[in-house]
């Protein structure tokens, strides 16, 4: 049973012995499913939580776990509302069969959106349990005490939780009596976050750890260029592939871009991949995406996808005219994608089961329904812990591939993407090219601000949208690309120009979306404007925040000013590092707002020599509203600051030939432990509603590092990542 290249999937199935596949063929819709983003309701939340017969509360978390410790946050909230110790609550990543449809895990809004529905569900469950206990104990509900072991009657008898679990409870409707409990949930210091014990023991948690009986192992050798550019498959060494022990199949499928190799074991799939030597004819047009987003070209052509606001005298003199180019960047999560699919026979239960690490498992289910013509309730997506999301897992790519392969070979299949696949077949942070022009009046206040930005799509990602659909979306711009484009400051007249160009490589969501590069450009220009008008970077920002109006882009200018002052004060408490021979030392300041709500400010200290730029200190003040999981928020700030090092000093996925120049981690620079400066993180206490914490500090740290480099060297580099050679620091005399 050796399938031949060039056979269509359907032909191959017949060739495989005429075994009928009891599935209708895929529907032919050209419109990809649009992700649904319903806000969680109290009714949804009632389906997340139950008391199991073991006496433990079981909570199915409606958001994916990818390192932000959302499992820990919802466990703490649930325990607080139930009035039981956290150790009594088992929390798990929900699959699509476990809970009602839930929104994707994007935009750092989990705690904000889940808190109230979850509190309501817990309060209702608690009320129902107390009512049941009251009946059984013959006491009034108000006299009962909730304890770790169960519910205690006034006389002293304890009804254990396990005894209260059956029969299944009907929750009372939400009412005043089921309102969230006041007070802030306290942490249990002895209890590690969910799944951490398994992590430190190396227990199975990730998709690649899933093993099914009779499972086959697949690889897809993807084309180096996107198929829409027109590369042509020339062929591969089929005999060499077939000779690999453990060989099962080599085939192409109309729905999968590339050559599919199937083996009995992972090691055999790797050996087949090495043997395949797949050859492609390059497409005729292979433009460099960085050149395609050149902002000066967009300015010269006076053509922008969106152009808002007006400024005076566009061709007149500017106090600051700063260009900043930010290259494309890879997510480079350490876990390469993996997915497992199994089609089941029989009329009951799921017809398709899929194991994957997705930020949007319900969207994946929609895609499966479309691809395979199955009703939603017969598709179960078992979502797994994700080894680094950062936006990369918000679309369905490997999930589609593995299901088509499993359907073709009629066996459970595990598909492992290699690191090369991640670079070639994944999608990336789009490059962006900025020109920020600022005019400062005689009073030292900004009169005109013009930020022209040329980039590509993020929310309307080209990884999921065909070109025609993207041109329709063009009418509304791309709120992901323009996130952070609007400065938080009072700037007098203001013009924001945005050009979006579909690029030869797929672009899409990346940590912070456009906010990282956009706010960096804003903060670099603010620093330059302060310097050019003889004002201190702190005072200049505070003056323009004091005059700023609150709006959707910035709920509270005062909160932003507060973090700015706090970060500056904390840094001022530490003397500037003395410069050694051949060293330039400087400090820089920056601040920003994320999604209008959370604010952060940072101060960086850098040491620049002829061959190295080293960040030695980072102070960050961060206000994301009320905090449920302080250790988790602190970890997110630490992580974002590490990403800031990358954003300014290393992130770059070059693709001069319209394909990644490097497809290995050894050729892609990431921050390392020795690059990590001493951190000072200041979480501002707040009772405001929780705001985003997973992406906020990226808007502060990167600008601070960039501005520190400028303070140290007097240069504002026009492109990232900043190389020491661009700063012309003289080596120390020997």
């Amino acid at each position, binding site marked *: 049973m050796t399938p031949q290249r060039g056979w269509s999937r359907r032909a191959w199935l017949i060739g495989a012995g005429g075994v009928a596949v009891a599935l209708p063929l895929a529907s032919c819709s050209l419109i990809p499913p649009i992700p649904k983003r319903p806000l969680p309701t109290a009714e949804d939340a009632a389906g997340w939580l139950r008391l199991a017969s073991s006496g433990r509360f079981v909570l199915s978390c409606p958001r994916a776990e*990818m*390192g*932000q*410790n959302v499992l820990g946050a919802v466990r703490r909230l649930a325990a607080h509302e139930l009035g039981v110790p956290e150790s009594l609550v088992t929390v798990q990543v929900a699959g699509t069969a476990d809970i009602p449809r839930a929104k994707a895990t994007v935009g750092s809004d989990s705690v904000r959106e889940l808190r109230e529905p979850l509190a309501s569900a817990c309060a209702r469950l608690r009320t129902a349990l107390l009512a049941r206990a009251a009946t059984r104990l013959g006491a009034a509900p108000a006299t009962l005490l909730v304890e770790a072991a169960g519910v205690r009657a006034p006389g002293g008898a304890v009804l254990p939780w396990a005894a209260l679990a059956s029969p299944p409870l009907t929750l009372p409707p939400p009412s005043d009596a089921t309102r969230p409990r006041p007070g802030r949930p306290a942490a249990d210091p002895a209890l*590690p*976050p969910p*799944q*951490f*014990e398994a*992590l*430190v*023991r*190396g*227990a*199975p*948690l*990730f998709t*690649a*750890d899933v*093993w099914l009986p009779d499972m086959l192992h697949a690889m897809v050798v993807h084309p180096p260029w996107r198929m829409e550019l027109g590369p042509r498959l020339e062929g591969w060494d089929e005999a060499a592939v077939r000779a690999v*022990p453990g060989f099962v199949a080599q085939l192409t499928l109309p729905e999968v871009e590339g050559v599919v190799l199937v083996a009995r*074991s*992972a*090691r055999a799939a*790797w050996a087949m991949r090495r043997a395949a030597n797949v050859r492609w004819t390059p497409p005729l047009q292979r433009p460099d995406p960085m050149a395609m987003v050149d902002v000066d070209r967009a300015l010269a052509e006076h053509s922008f996808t969106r152009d808002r606001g007006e400024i005076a005298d566009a061709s007149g003199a500017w106090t600051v005219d700063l260009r900043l180019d930010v290259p494309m960047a890879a*997510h*480079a*999560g*350490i*876990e*390469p994608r993996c997915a497992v699919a199994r089609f089941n026979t029989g009329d009951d239960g799921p017809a398709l089961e899929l194991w994957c690490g997705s930020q949007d498992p319900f969207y994946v289910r929609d895609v499966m329904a479309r691809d395979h013509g199955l009703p939603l309730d017969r598709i179960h997506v078992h979502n797994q*812990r*994700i*080894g*680094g*999301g*950062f936006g990369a897992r918000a679309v369905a790519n490997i999930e589609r591939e593995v299901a088509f392969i499993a359907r073709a070979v009629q066996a459970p299949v595990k598909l*492992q993407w*290699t*690191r090369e696949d991640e670079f070639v077949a994944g999608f990336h942070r789009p490059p962006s090219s900025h020109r920020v022009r600022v005019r400062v009046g005689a009073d030292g206040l900004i009169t005109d601000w013009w930020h022209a930005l040329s980039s590509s799509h993020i929310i309307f990602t080209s990884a999921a949208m065909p070109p025609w659909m993207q041109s329709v979306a063009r009418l509304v711009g791309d709120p992901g690309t323009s996130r952070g484009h609007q400065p938080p400051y009072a700037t007098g007249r203001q013009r924001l120009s945005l050009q979006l160009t579909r690029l030869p490589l797929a672009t899409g969501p990346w940590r912070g979306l456009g906010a990282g590069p956009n706010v960096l450009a804003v903060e670099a220009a603010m620093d330059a404007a302060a310097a050019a008008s003889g004002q201190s970077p702190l005072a200049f920002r505070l003056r323009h925040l004091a005059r700023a109006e609150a709006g959707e882009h910035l709920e509270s200018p005062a909160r932003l000013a507060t973090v700015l002052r706090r970060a500056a004060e904390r840094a001022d408490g530490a003397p500037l590092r003395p410069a050694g021979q051949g060293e330039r030392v400087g400090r820089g300041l920056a601040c920003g707002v994320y999604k209008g709500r959370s604010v952060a400010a940072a101060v960086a200290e850098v040491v620049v020599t002829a061959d190295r730029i080293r960040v030695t200190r980072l102070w960050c003040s961060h206000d994301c509203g009320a905090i449920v999981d302080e*250790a988790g928020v602190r*970890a997110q700030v*630490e*992580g*974002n*600051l*590490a*990403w800031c090092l990358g954003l300014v000093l290393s992130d770059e996925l070059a693709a001069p030939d319209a394909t990644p120049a490097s497809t*290995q*981690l*050894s050729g892609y620079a*990431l*921050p*390392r*432990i*020795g*690059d*990590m400066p001493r*951190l000072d993180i200041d979480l501002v206490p707040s009772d405001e509603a929780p705001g985003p914490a997973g992406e906020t500090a990226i808007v502060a740290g990167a600008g601070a590092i960039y501005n520190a480099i400028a303070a140290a060297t007097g240069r504002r580099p026009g492109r990232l990542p900043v190389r020491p050679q661009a700063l012309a620091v003289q080596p120390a005399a020997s």
Partner: protein
Amino acid sequence: MQIELNGQTVPLDRTNEAVPLLWWLRESQGLTGTRYGCGEGACGACTVHLGGQPVRACLTPCDAAADQALTTIEGLARNGRLHPVQQAWLALQVPQCGYCQSGQMMGAAALLARHPRPTDTQIDEAMAGHLCRCGTYDRIRAAVHHAALLLAGGSP
């Protein structure tokens, strides 16, 4: 040929001689704590101890481990008690996504076996080949110091 895997003697099939330890561990031994990250020794996620030395399982063929002691993350705990590195990783809540952390802990344990009280510089040098995209580096450094104190029998 055989390998002493986490204290147990395991026979090594001749057909596996050239197979990287990573896939032999994950597939033949069901030990999935050793993780695939890059396949070229660049990320450190697959770090195991061979004869007490940290090696990259994705690049090390099985026959290189013949007749040697091989320790994986699953074998780091002894007699049901977590290794001080694992204890420190829990106490300081080091992981974020956690995918690289098996390798980080194996790297840290090997470092502490060589230098029971490492300096920051020694930590940075020893751990330079371990990538963490989430950015847990600051906590890794602190956790290595914490583990050093645990190893010395002190309370951090």
